[in-house]
């Protein structure tokens, strides 16, 4: 197996496992999520012999998400259709060799999928209505970003707008983090945290335009894993106790200790908790951003710090306080296993990030076919 094939396999496994966890935990049932089709499209996006096919595959995943989302949120469905169209535009751009069209289409698709403000209404709606589906679409967004980094980020357009993207991404990291501080319900916090990570990813995309592709990949993988874990915990809690307000102390840690522990770990992993992938992602990202904008770097650092404070504050409001009893059970076994799998993935990526990231730059620099059919 070549180094490029190893990176592709790692990304496939990580993305696939993250995608599968909401289903494994029992938060998605039946054929609602088109799981097998998604897995097939993930593989196609990585193995496609040409960039345009990779973008067609990720456009198809967006379209499938639109179908899944339609019964839950029409806004979310419309957003996914828009993301699919943008991906098709990127595919056409790559096919015809028009870098500007490819870059614009791909960037718009990523912005719509990761919830970059101000085009975050679709993702926000999904966060509020179905964190499980939002987690799954974030997992497939990994493959959209990989296609962007492999086939588009080497263009002169990406290089020219890098500094601009970093600055915009930095501001759109800090603003949602501040918004997360003043949320009044748990899903509001989850929504703001997701949008904040969207801004961070956009800043990372900017840095990738100047060659820091590994940083962008790590930020995306961490965001997908941590926000999936957090989404699972939010959904698990709300299935048990209904809507969760952040106005008073909830005192739920006594009734749901495992849920509380998992919640705080995933929230922490999203804000650079050491020992997890989040720490490495932030470290890599900050070094990459510094080369483009010192103020952008400081803004992202502040955004991450503010979200960390918001996360602890939300945790305290939801789980701490005078104990409240509940007849609902703590995390069920499948939910616990899903949490542990995601946690181990985050720890593994945090302790030995080099396994995936060291060969990643070469993988993105040489976007040749991974399988030789001749």
């Amino acid at each position, binding site marked *: 197996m070549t180094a490029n094939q190893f990176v592709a396999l790692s990304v496939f496994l990580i993305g696939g496992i993250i995608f599968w966890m909401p289903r494994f935990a029992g938060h998605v049932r039946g054929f609602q999520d088109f799981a097998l089709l998604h897995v097939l499209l993930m593989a196609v996006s990585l193995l496609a012999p040409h960039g345009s096919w990779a973008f067609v595959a990720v456009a198809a995943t967006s379209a499938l998400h639109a179908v899944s989302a339609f*019964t839950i949120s*029409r*806004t979310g469905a419309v957003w996914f259709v828009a993301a699919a169209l943008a991906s098709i535009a990127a595919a056409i751009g790559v096919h015809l060799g028009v870098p500007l069209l490819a870059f614009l289409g791909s960037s718009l698709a990523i912005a719509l999928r990761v919830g970059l403000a*101000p*085009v*975050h*209404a679709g993702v*926000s709606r999904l966060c*509020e*209505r179905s964190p499980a589906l939002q987690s799954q679409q974030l997992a497939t967004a990994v493959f959209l970003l990989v296609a962007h980094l492999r086939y588009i980020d080497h263009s002169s357009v990406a290089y020219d707008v890098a500094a601009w993207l970093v600055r915009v991404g930095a501001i759109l990291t800090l*603003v949602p983090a*501040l*918004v997360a*501080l*003043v949320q009044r319900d748990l899903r509001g916090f989850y929504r703001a945290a997701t949008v904040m990570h969207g801004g961070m990813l956009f800043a990372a995309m900017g840095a990738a335009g100047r*060659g820091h592709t*590994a*940083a962008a990949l790590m930020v995306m993988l961490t965001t997908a894993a941590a926000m999936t874990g957090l989404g699972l915990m939010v959904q698990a809690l*709300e299935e*048990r*106790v*209904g*809507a969760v307000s952040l106005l008073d102390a909830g*005192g739920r840690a*006594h009734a749901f200790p*495992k849920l509380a*522990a*998992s919640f705080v770990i995933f929230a922490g992993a999203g804000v650079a908790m*050491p*020992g997890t992938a989040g*720490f*490495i992602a932030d*470290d*890599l990202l*900050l070094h990459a951003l*510094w080369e483009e904008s010192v103020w952008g770097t*400081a803004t992202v*650092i502040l955004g991450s*710090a503010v979200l*960390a*404070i918001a996360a*602890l*504050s939300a945790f*305290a409001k939801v*789980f*701490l*306080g*005078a*104990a*409240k009893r*509940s007849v*609902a059970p703590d995390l069920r076994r499948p939910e616990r*296993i899903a949490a*542990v799998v995601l946690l181990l993935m985050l*720890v593994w990526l945090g302790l030995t*990030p*080099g396994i995936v*990231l*060291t060969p*990643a730059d070469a993988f993105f620099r040489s976007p040749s076919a991974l399988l030789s059919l001749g």
Partner: protein
Amino acid sequence: MSPVKVALAVAIAAPFASALWLGITVLLRDLRPSEREVRGIIGAGLLASVGASAFVLLSWLGALGAPATGDIAFGSWLRVGTYEIPGVARLDALSVTLSLLGALLTWLVARFSETYLHKEPGFSRFFVLLGVFATGLQLVSFAGALDVFFAGWEMLGISSAFFIGFFHERAEPIRSSVRAFTTYRLCDAGFLIAMVAVHEYLGSTRFAALDQSAGLTALQVNTIAALFLLAAMGKSAMLPFSGWLPRAMEGPTPSSALFYGALSIHMGLFLLLRIWSLLEVAPVVRGAAVVIGLATAVYGASVARTNTDAKGALAHATLAQVGLILAEIALGFTTIALVHIGCHALLRIFQYLRAPNAIHDAHRLGHARVVHAHQAARVEHGKWHRRWYVLSVHRLRLDDLLDAVVSPVLALARVLDRVDQRLRGKTTLPSALPTVREELTLGQVTQ
């Protein structure tokens, strides 16, 4: 791998592995682990860390052959192109002293807590956090690069915040926990910016690279040093960030002893000792540090003398000494500062662990502190004494001051939230579907 490398790896990894093992056990199992099991898992990790730290000390002293000193490379934590997070440990007087002192005190406090927290509902949680703290401490002690140091530094901050909020059924510990964490994270932003700047200007985040700090411009060196000083001020509760320290006494006595008496409170000072080669060429920041240190000492001593609760008085007395140590470091007395840190840590951990008994003695055995008539008269009749007394009682209104800084930020956040709501409202289709909340009535009933 050489024996010293193995010992270093064990010192750091053993408590982490034990905390991770216990954490996953708690998550996966239906039943809570017994106290004996918890003690066994974490105790083994901590004891292994003590043994490994002692071995490293002996190796450094040369008792086991040629002395092991300087940077010991473990390869790269991460290498991507030209960028590297070096996996490097540093063996010198600073690291071996803090490592062994920290490992021993953590193990002793763990032993003390087995009895102190017997049958407490959060017994497992306490020991998992202790494992995280021990890992962070060993990382900070042995770190040969800023990235590794920061990983440990953050672990200390996180475990500290959760220890403060340990008795989470009451509102005050929760508020105190969030306040302490807020101070940590905002001040740590300074560390992060400084770390990235060091990498960019000096080419590496290794502490050894700081020896080339003299080659930087005065503005660069003073800015980076000031950012590190900011991080140290947050962690060591220097003025004006001292407000969280008395609130941190809401945690269990053993964790208060370990964090705010012995180890965590000195970590800011340890950072400054570690970056001494940078600080040495930053005279403006050193001058500022002397002023901040002495001001903190005066503040701590004054408030300690007017405080009416035992742990609060101890916290401020600790602060007074920490302020003095900061001044010592800034004036260049680094060896004295290291000795001062060691002796102070040992004294305070004893005083904190004895605090509950001291309160008992004062109430039951009549050993209450006597206020002499001339002291009372001085406060009553002296204008400046009275004013200073009132200010000290109110802790210089530091919390109000910081709240006044935070309030406009929260107001801005609320404005941004309203803008966000409007923006989302305009780009969201009107819903004909029931919301998730309306579907969750069954859950609400069970609540």
